């Protein structure tokens, strides 16, 4: 039997962080798609759960005064995928959300819950890094923000300190760009074997990130700089090599490390061409 001692249902972020601060064993529960599956498999046995389901502040997608798009941590993937707000190149995040698992799981899982788990096979991390998203984090000490690239630290490890909670994901103000998430998996709904998120910003700047090929999303500023000025096949191949050099993929049932390294340049090519096409059709 689990050693669970309590399920708490705070109404505000402050109540939630106070609970987490007080009980080091307590875990935040969002959609449950990840946490309850692990509970069922007895992979984790938390002493207490802090359900975030009643905290309105962290739900929904809105445009802030500064133009940035705020996705509350408790926003379901379905909602993020169906977001009709203009997102520009940050649409890569919605595109990634639409490819997570399947429709029913997308009704349940949330962006905050998903990224807090930091499984490198997840779809959000590379999309958030490519989009230049910022993660908003709360604790009893207050709020802080962190660029997505710094949020994902290692295999299943984020920059969250004990007692901290993701409250929102902030996307840059919508530019007139396009964003595309290319996912290669064995079957629909599987974790990615490898994926590439590509953003083509209105100023023609490009930013890309590779998923499932290492402990954290792969991004390389030189690769982005090159692709911002030259998107020939040769340039894409060169940019890919810099990403390959940073890659540290595993052998697992989804694919060998060698295969993933082979995929990076190929998926990058596909992603760049796809985002160029998306940009042209939006124009």
């Amino acid at each position, binding site marked *: 039997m689990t050693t669970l001692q309590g399920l708490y249902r705070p109404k505000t972020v402050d109540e939630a962080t106070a609970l987490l601060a007080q009980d080091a064993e307590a875990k935040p529960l969002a959609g449950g798609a990840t946490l309850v599956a692990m509970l069922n498999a007895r992979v984790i046995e938390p002493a207490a759960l802090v359900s975030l389901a009643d905290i309105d502040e962290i739900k929904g997608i809105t445009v802030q005064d500064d133009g940035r798009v705020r996705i509350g941590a408790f926003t379901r993937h379905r909602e993020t995928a169906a977001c009709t707000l203009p997102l520009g190149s940050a649409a890569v995040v919605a595109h990634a959300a639409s490819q997570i698992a399947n429709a029913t799981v997308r009704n349940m899982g949330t962006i905050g819950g998903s990224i807090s788990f930091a499984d490198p096979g997840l779809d959000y991390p590379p999309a958030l890094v490519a989009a230049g998203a910022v993660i908003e984090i709360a604790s009893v000490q207050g709020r802080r923000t962190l660029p997505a690239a710094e949020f994902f630290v290692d295999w299943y490890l984020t920059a969250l300190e004990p007692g901290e909670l993701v409250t929102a994901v902030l996307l840059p103000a919508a530019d007139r760009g396009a964003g595309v998430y290319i996912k290669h998996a*064995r079957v629909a709904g599987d974790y990615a074997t490898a994926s590439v998120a590509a953003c083509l910003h209105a100023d023609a700047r490009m930013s890309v990130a590779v998923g499932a090929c290492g402990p954290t999303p792969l991004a390389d500023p030189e690769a982005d700089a090159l692709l911002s000025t030259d998107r020939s096949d040769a340039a894409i191949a060169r940019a890919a090599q810099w990403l390959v050099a940073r890659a540290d993929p595993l052998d697992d049932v989804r*694919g060998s490390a060698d295969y993933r390294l*082979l995929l990076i340049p190929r998926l990058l090519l596909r992603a760049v061409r796809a985002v160029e096409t998306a940009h042209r059709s939006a124009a």
Partner: protein
Amino acid sequence: MSGAVIEAAACAGGVGQGIPQLEANEKLTGSAQYIADMARPGMLHGAILQSHLPHARIRGYELSQALALPGVRAIVTGDDLPDGHRMGAFIKDEPAFAKGKVRYVGEIVAAVAADTEAIARQATRLIRVDYEELPAVLDPAESLAPGAAVIHEEASSYVKVFDAGTEGNLCSRTSFRAGDADKAWAECDLVVEGSYQTQAQAHLSLEPCGALAEIDATGRVTLWSANQSVFRVQASVCESLGLPMTRLRCLTPRIGAGFGNKMEAHVQPAVVLLAMKARKPVKLILSREEDFESVRARHPATIRMKTGVKRDGTIVARETELLLDGGAYGDDSPGVLGYALLMNCGPYRIPNVHAHGRVAYTNKLRFGAFRGFGVPQVTFASETQLDEIAHQLGMDPIALRRRNMLAGSDPWFGGQPILSNGLAQCVDIVEKASGWPQPSAQGASDRQRGLGVALTAHISGLLASGAIVRVLEDGTVLLNTGAVDIGQGSNTVLTQMCAEALKLPVDRVAIASPDTDGSPYNWGTTASRVTYVAGRSVVGAAAEVEGKLKQHASEMLECSVEDLELLAGGRVAIKGVAQRSVSFAEISGRAHWAAGGPIIGTHSWVFDQKTVDPKRAVVEGLPFPQIGIYSFNALVVEVEVDELTGKVRIVNAWSACDIGRAINPTMATGQIEGAFVQGMGYALTEEMVWDGARLANPSLMDYKIPTFAELPDSIHAYLVESNEPSGPFGAKSVGEIGINGVAAAIANGIAQATGVRLHQLPLSAERVLNGLLAKDDGEGAA
């Protein structure tokens, strides 16, 4: 086309009509009761303890902590099992659960019954087993090499139902010889040889295995379980626990599919033992992970195949060598080996054949029956090798097959006569419908399309079945066959046959649930045999009932029996004089109250056509001396290969099956479609992966079967009816044949699209991409 004209269905729902399953209402309202849904008064809940070691002696058990946990009612271990009692379909090598030794990671070592499942599971974690670890053997070739650790020390003393040749880690061996393959190579203009490797596939029935046993005051046990044969369950439990078969009654709830996983025992012996020890009902349902790790899976196979042909494409000789990984226990392995070898030629004339193979024990879970039963493996080799031959001869792959296809009165390999053969028609249909050899318009520029073909066959007749048909007092009819409906619709199909035979509407015939107490023996729902074997019993028993009805009617109508005919709707009438008739109800009334006794018709038989004609072939170690009646399949698939990633998508599939007669066409096409998609998983994405001795992916997160998203744009299933003279209403089989050729056809399609030839399953994106790259580097076929 087909043979004799078949009478149109006489009544609503009769033979040839795609009526809904009889269980439709309960399945569509959620009221169907599967084993996990059942409850009995006072029921306890069970859980298993699994071995974490692949090979070890069990020195002892420490149960005191577990027994002390409040709510624990009984624990069983190998110490509770009687010595010397083992079960096994071909070789009796398996105890009820581990006794004295564990032989694979995940093997059941103990079981607990407690007030709740949570308590039972917690108790299993408190059991300590004292193991003495032994070296483990994980590879079949290594297992057969000298010096390998011996997995079954007493192998030579095990009871075997055939001449298996068991020795050391060799579980069984089989060899067929026809003509003289060794000499015939010299006559060939082209000889192609290759090695092939296929993977373990998990059945993944949506319903995990489980059982519920209840003991009564006299000590008799009633057992419900997720099963494919109440009779195999009864035999296995009684053999392994040392019980007389009269002590155990086996019943069946609704079954959430099997595909072979539930054909032999899983937790039933442990659950019966728990119920006997606790003296209370016990229900035990495996988790998905436990089902993956402890039950059974499809045999991984290593195949070496050599085929020799004349320049004009005539096949002259074939040599096949098969090595099956049998896992820790024999289970159905000897049968899978023998059957795969029997089927290795495919539906072709090959005069000189040497087909031989071995099953090796390894310290992995037992491999056993899984739809296709060895044929998907051996067909992957044979149908891709034929394509390679066609390519080298510059012949169209279908033309090559037509040249060699069994036709007319050609017998099957080994000599069994074939009385109905619709293969040519199957080939005609799919060749035309697919637009062979041209794939449909190419998709995007980095995707290549190709068509691939495979021809296969599968048997319909094996072992024994019986049927009892009773006319109830009101003239309605009760059918009892002992055949378990695992979801494929046998209840409906057998009822349709009985109704048709007696010219009754289907709703006036009920079918009893299989019960070892009351049902006649049916070996099992496996081997695609129920329609043909149980069907023949149904027709036979119905014929006996017809005879008795007519006997009564002749006395009631004062005429001779020859003057009588059945009328639709349950009447017997004088031919041509419909007004002079009596109803089944009237006859049954007479039988019950006045003369003759209640009308019962029975039929019991065992399939007795010899597999092998000794004048045509010599066999050593044949596990099935009597098996046959062949259905045929021609399959064309259209694949699309993503040249950037190697991922293969199936665009279209055309599968034509000669099934003799479609008793229920909707269900028959459903079998073909379902088998195709399961075959797609086998071909492309499914693979049980071992990390050392441990299964690395025993979960649906990591083991992926096709979803709606992988469904091709279209699957066209065609039914060809060649009217098998020996078949009930002309029927043969349809359950397995649809899966046999899928992997080969897809591999052939990939080759047509890209030139990449793969000899290993699954045809993962990674393997295809590596093949594409090797080709670009000029390294040729993988």
